């Protein structure tokens, strides 16, 4: 070991031997780990900066505006200008807040998305770690994000931030359950919680899990949207209601970090959805010609676009309505889905059915289940839509008081 002959450290040969020594090849691990970290970090950083521009441009397009188009070609340098502005701004710290925790919040907020990215495979052998419990790992660490948000909110000593914190926690408690249950659908079929194995399963069977588990996909997508606090589940920072929620007291680059992490979380969620339900780096054999990471990034941006689309089009629901949606609709529906998926997998494995025939049949059955639950349970479980006319009534003669006939 190096420690045994440290006096020889100036001898380069000694060091090289230590590095290349097959018994003590720990340094290789360290170097590989660092390289992987650098790769993930730079991917996150780059996507975060690009996403600011993409999100602003796409939403502007949806809103009949132009979006940023002044700084650099097509406004591409806008994120840089934003970042420069934010760095220059004064960081205000609330005097009566819990200052150390307040400063810690934006520092730690980047860690969970980085952790979760570690298990997302970008190619056949391109995952930072191929964890046996990858799916659970992702869910566990996204919940840590919520804790950090709570930390930031509570330490600001601000009532709006407190509202945001309360809503974040309530949403976490509610939406984590359907999220886990929906993620179990692919896991049951693939027989593994490792994301790499799930992709491999989809490749081996030449199908995307979304065809076999459409209900789980929709529940997962909705719950993931809630988990990352994006519209229409952006109650924690509902601008029109509680100013900026947990972000109210943050300014300058501290605010900027939260803002960027929000985009990164969306990317992570998109990546998980793409991996679990859409085959990750596999695309009907196309991955032989196109590098897998490009396919993954393409799929990630497809789902990121869907998240932006949600944001550009949907109004926000109220807290109690969202709670009701999670507990009364998503939870029972995903339980039914797990039951059906378990039955199907048991039948398939016990009878050793041919997957080429069994999976399309399962797909049809589950799609029927999705249609039935969306139609039936949507009407019975989630509460009825309020009666609402589509046009105002005409008030003639004048001066009368009009009341509904009921």
């Amino acid at each position: 070991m190096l420690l045994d002959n440290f006096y020889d450290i100036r001898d380069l040969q000694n060091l090289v031997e230590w590095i290349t020594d097959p018994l003590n090849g720990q340094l290789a691990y360290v170097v590989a780990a660092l390289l992987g970290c650098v790769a993930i970090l730079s991917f996150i950083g780059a996507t975060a900066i690009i996403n600011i521009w993409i999100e602003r441009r796409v939403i502007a397009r949806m809103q009949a505006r132009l979006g940023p188009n002044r700084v650099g070609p097509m406004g591409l340098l806008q994120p840089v200008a934003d970042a420069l502005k934010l760095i220059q701004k004064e960081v205000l710290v609330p005097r009566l807040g819990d200052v150390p925790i307040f400063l810690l919040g934006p520092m730690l907020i980047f860690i969970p998305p980085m952790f979760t990215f570690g298990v997302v495979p970008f190619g056949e052998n391109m995952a930072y770690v191929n964890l046996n419990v990858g799916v659970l790992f992702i869910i566990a660490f996204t919940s840590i994000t919520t804790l950090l948000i709570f930390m930031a909110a509570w330490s600001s000593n601000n009532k709006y931030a407190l509202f945001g914190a309360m809503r974040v926690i309530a949403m976490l408690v509610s939406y984590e359950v359907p999220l886990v249950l929906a993620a179990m659908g692919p896991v049951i079929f693939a027989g593994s919680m490792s994301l790499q194995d799930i992709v491999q399963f989809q490749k081996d069977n030449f199908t995307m899990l979304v065809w076999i588990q459409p209900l789980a996909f929709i529940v997962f997508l909705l719950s993931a949207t809630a988990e990352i606090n994006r519209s229409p589940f952006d109650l924690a920072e509902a601008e029109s209601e509680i100013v900026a929620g947990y972000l109210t007291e943050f300014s300058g680059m501290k605010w900027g970090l939260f803002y960027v992490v929000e985009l990164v979380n969306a990317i992570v969620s998109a990546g998980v959805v793409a991996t679990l339900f859409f085959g990750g780096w596999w695309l009907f054999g196309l991955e032989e010609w196109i590098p897998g990471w490009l396919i993954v990034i393409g799929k990630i941006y497809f789902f990121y676009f869907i998240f932006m689309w949600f944001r550009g089009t949907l109004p926000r629901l109220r807290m109690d309505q969202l709670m009701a949606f999670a507990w009364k609709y998503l939870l029972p529906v995903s339980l039914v889905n797990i039951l059906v998926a378990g039955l199907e997998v048991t039948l398939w494995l016990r009878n050793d059915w041919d997957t080429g025939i069994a999976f399309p049949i399962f797909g049809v059955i589950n799609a029927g289940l999705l249609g039935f639950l969306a139609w039936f349970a949507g009407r019975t479980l989630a509460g009825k839509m309020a009666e609402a006319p589509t046009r105002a009534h005409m008030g003639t003669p004048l001066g009368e008081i009009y009341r509904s006939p009921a």
Partner: protein
Amino acid sequence: MDDLGIVIAFWTLSGLTVGSALLIVVTRNIFHAVLALIVSFLGVAGLYVLLSADFIAVAQVLVYAGAVSVLMLFALMLTPRQARNNAANYLEIPGLLLSLVIGGLITVAAVSTDWAEVDDDRGFDATSRLIGEALIDKWVLPFEIAAVILLVAMVGAIMLVREDQ
């Protein structure tokens, strides 16, 4: 335990766990105590990883750091503001006794256990499968009873806090 990396990781994680556990007791701010508790949970999860129990490690993060601490934060948020700094501590003596008893039990258990070495290559696979099979197969009755008890507790809690109509 002769692997340098494992040794470093073990002592770091142990120090983190014990240190933050001490911080929970020492700090006067409940909110800081909960945060230290979360760090402590995460340290324990790291120790599980060192023991090749990946499923338990992630479950520790998910259940303890993710859910239990969230419930504590929720309770914290619902307490009035004055309780943020817990000045008066009128349960000192019973708390001391209780922790002494628990500490004694853990010591006895640690001393009396036969710490056999296991093969290194027993490895990383399928702890979740083993746990699942054990829960559904061998221990299904206790598992179901626990589930029923939890359900009853939940219904009882809801009934207790429900407002009269």
